């Protein structure tokens, strides 16, 4: 674990990072599947969200910058398969704190959905 990740995990409780923006949530979901570079994250977020979340380089690296500062993601020191590797790129991975933040946000969203579904209006308007 990097110095940044350690600092992040010892200082702030997981709840202090919530709620996550849709862009950050999708970035973390992508990195939960394994380490990736910026272009791969961008493409995967577009695919995963069905095109509803599109990240430009500014938004993506702005988010990564904050996530690195908070110790939620870290730059990967190990390079992937050398044949697949592109030495110009930096790879990012989810830290342990990042995994906990992602799980907590998923749980928070699930609670929201459960609460919404328990209301009469939503039950009535629910598509068949």
């Amino acid at each position, binding site marked *: 674990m990097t110095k940044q990740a350690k600092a992040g995990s010892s200082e702030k409780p997981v709840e202090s990072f919530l709620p996550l923006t849709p862009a950050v949530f999708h970035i973390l979901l992508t990195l939960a599947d394994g380490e990736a570079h*910026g*272009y791969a994250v*961008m493409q995967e977020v577009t695919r995963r969200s069905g095109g509803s979340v*599109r990240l*430009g*380089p*500014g*938004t*993506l*690296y*702005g988010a*990564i*910058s904050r996530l690195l500062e908070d110790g939620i993601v870290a730059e990967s020191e190990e390079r992937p398969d050398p044949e697949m590797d592109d030495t*110009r*790129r*930096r790879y990012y991975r989810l830290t342990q704190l990042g995994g906990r933040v992602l799980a907590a946000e998923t749980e928070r969203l699930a609670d929201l959905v459960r609460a919404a579904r328990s209301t009469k209006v939503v039950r009535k308007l629910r598509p068949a």
Partner: protein
Amino acid sequence: MTVGHLSIEYSERFYSALLSLYPARFRVRFASEMLQLFRDCAHDALEKGEIAVFAAFLVGMMRDLLLSILRERGKEWVGPIDGHPLAALIDLLLIPTMVTMKLVFLGPVLTLLFRDSTRISIDQFMMTSAFFSVAIGILALVASIVFTRLRPTVRLWVKLSA
């Protein structure tokens, strides 16, 4: 060299120039990655073959870049520095000086610029309260520059002393 390649080359140069508007800390860390990502996306957009797709891609990239620059600049200027009291004091002084500079400076400067049409000579101008407004505006400008430059130093000092 095809028109497509030229389009990518020129748009890349333009994008690269705009990257210099980011704060130094962010630029040093991410500019090369952002440029690489822009290049990859530009090739993707061009592969689709339509000029309209490439134009829409460029507009989207510029919008993203400018909003992101404003966000990062805003963070650099007025974001809290780890809740340190010295940093809080600088923030407290920075915002009023910047606002003062903009409000107090603008009117008299416009008066000076258009003094021909308002028939005010420099001597007359120096006797008016607008002259003192310019002086306060200049002081506020100098103060805001000093405070803006001081922030990264304080940030570094706070980090090193932590």
